[in-house]
């Protein structure tokens, strides 16, 4: 099958959706430039010049503007070069967009808006340019929160976001834009709330979000060499969450690691651990293990940054421990960061 990059898949989904639906428009800082959101908006900008345009730095109001445009039948796509800027838009997202359909009892129409934002580490992004606030957002009923980890998922989930009738937050990981994968030319939208089993296995389940799915797969590959069979589950969307697939996997393996690309407290790793404690308790053979960012802001300095982020070896090590095997030196399996400055 055809192999393309994550950012190409996103670009392709955008152009396809905009071709089909003239109500979609896309805006955000630098959206109309080749550099727009890691190159994912450039083709759309060329193809639909009137429907892809730059936006001043006004994250708060624009989220509300998007709601007002959506209420008139548009499908606004708002892109943010860093998810960290989204805090400024939280009011209109959390007090308005996500409550719209329920709060007006469906009588005020629908507000299908998509907010796309880059998240994650790379080249010392530091404390205010690397965060992934999927958990705080997923706390609120009415929001869909997606974090694709492969080019195919990026395309399929985005196609769904672009045709969905309610607000969707879409997190694209910096370290994934350049990764490659099979993506069919013709693709159907991938429904929200349907997890992907990235790798089947029988000894232990790793539920991992975004880039952590990649790390989990590397860990699983390595452990497979030692006869350990790991199942890797990518939930694709944090809200809605595919509880069933996760519960079924743990029912099979009896052991669970949750690996997330944000912090632990009131985060996704706690959510899934809590889910199992409530609904999968009788399947569990060992304690759940939550793996998340170190419990501090992201430091810039290389050795600190390296220690801050969990990676394949962290997961593999944790799996060995859960399976009562000896720890091993696994640092060799970790990917080398291919990022170059200044971005």
């Amino acid at each position: 099958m055809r192999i393309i990059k994550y950012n190409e898949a996103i670009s392709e989904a955008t152009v396809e959706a905009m071709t089909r639906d003239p109500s979609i428009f896309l805006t955000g800082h630098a959206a109309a430039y080749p550099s727009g959101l890691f190159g994912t908006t450039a083709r759309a900008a060329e193809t639909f010049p009137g429907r892809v345009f730059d936006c001043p730095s006004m994250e708060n109001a624009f989220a509300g503007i998007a709601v007002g445009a959506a209420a008139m039948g548009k499908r606004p796509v708002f892109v943010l070069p860093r998810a960290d800027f989204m805090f400024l838009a939280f009011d209109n997202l959390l007090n308005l967009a996500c409550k719209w359909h329920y709060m007006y009892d469906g009588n005020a129409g629908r507000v299908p808006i998509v907010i796309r934002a880059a998240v994650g580490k790379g080249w010392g992004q530091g404390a205010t340019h690397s965060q992934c606030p999927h958990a705080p957002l997923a706390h609120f009923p009415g929001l869909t929160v997606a974090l694709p980890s492969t080019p195919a998922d990026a395309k399929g989930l985005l196609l769904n976001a672009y045709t969905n009738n309610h607000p969707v937050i879409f997190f694209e990981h910096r370290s994934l834009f350049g990764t490659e994968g099979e993506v069919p030319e013709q693709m159907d939208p991938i429904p929200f709330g349907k997890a992907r089993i990235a790798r089947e296995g029988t000894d232990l389940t790793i539920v991992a979000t975004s880039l952590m799915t990649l790390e989990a797969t590397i860990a699983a590959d390595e452990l497979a060499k030692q006869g350990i069979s790991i199942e890797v589950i990518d939930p694709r969307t944090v809200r809605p969450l595919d509880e069933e697939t996760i519960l079924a996997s743990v029912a099979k393996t009896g052991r669970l690691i949750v690996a997330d690309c944000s912090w632990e407290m009131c985060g996704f790793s706690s959510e899934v651990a809590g889910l199992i404690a409530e609904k999968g308790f009788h399947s569990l053979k060992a304690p759940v293990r939550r793996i998340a960012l170190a419990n501090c802001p992201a430091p810039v300095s290389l050795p600190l940054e390296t220690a801050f982020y969990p990676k394949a070896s962290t997961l593999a090590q944790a799996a060995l421990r859960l399976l009562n095997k000896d720890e091993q030196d696994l640092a060799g399996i970790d990917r080398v960061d291919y990022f170059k400055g200044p971005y």
Partner: protein
Amino acid sequence: MITPEQHIRLYKEMLRIRCAEAALAERYKQQEMRTPTHFGLGQEAVPVGVCAALTKEDVAYSHHRSHNHYLAKGGSVYRLAAELFGRKTGCSGGRGGSVHLTDRESGFIASSAILAECVAMATGSALSFAMDASDRIAVAFFGDAVAEEGAFYECLGYAALKKLPVLFVCENNGYATESPLSIRQPEGASIHGRVASFQIPTRNIDGNDVAEVYLTALEVVDEMRRKPGPVFMECRTYRWLEHVGPFFDHELKRTYRTKEEVEEWMAHCPVKRHGAYLLENGHATGEQLSTWETETRKSIEDDIERAYQDPWPDVQTLMDKVY
């Protein structure tokens, strides 16, 4: 120029809203409308004058003090009352409460409780109209406190930059809850002056004179349809009742403003004033005025009672419209 018929229509619409709010405030005291409510008594001229200049295709948004705007744009007293009672026939199914009203059919899209959200929504609807080269207009109704919120300026900049057909209507009633303007906004920096610095045309008018509001709105709406771009209207007015709730401040011994100040403004009541104008100009007789009032009150009492008798939403619907 305003025809006699139009004058009468403006009057009757103000009367409808005045009577509705007064009756609702009275019912509110029974503690059966469980939703914090910001009554609009005294501020009827602005919504009535502005909405009279709009078509059904134009849309409006409002803030927390939204009953007047909802009604003036075409919303029904019955569904408003039902919303306040939490009935399933409420305009928002009883789910939204006083601060979350909607009536899409008449073009009242939404009110929302958080300051400045309505400004952003109207700007967004205007963006949509501009992209479609439609001649529709979006209106935001809001108060003076919104000029303290950053989102307001973000919208001003955007609307001016993109030349969006959005009409910003600020009802400057001099207070935000208990705080007078003087302790919230810089001396000498009028709101319309700040807006004008964005190169947005502004009007600063007497918001208790429905004819002035209507003529101004007609003029700017006409301009906007011919040459899209935002316009800002600052309308000086006054709220009679407490910030939230059905009482006069002095009934509750609140001291942030004097009874004299309230009474002075009440003497400039927009409804009475326009009634006097109709009489003076022979557009109506005293008898007509009192018949209209009696009829209006009656019909409103009927609406409110009908709403009161309506059923609650079924508890089973709690999770309906969750996706």
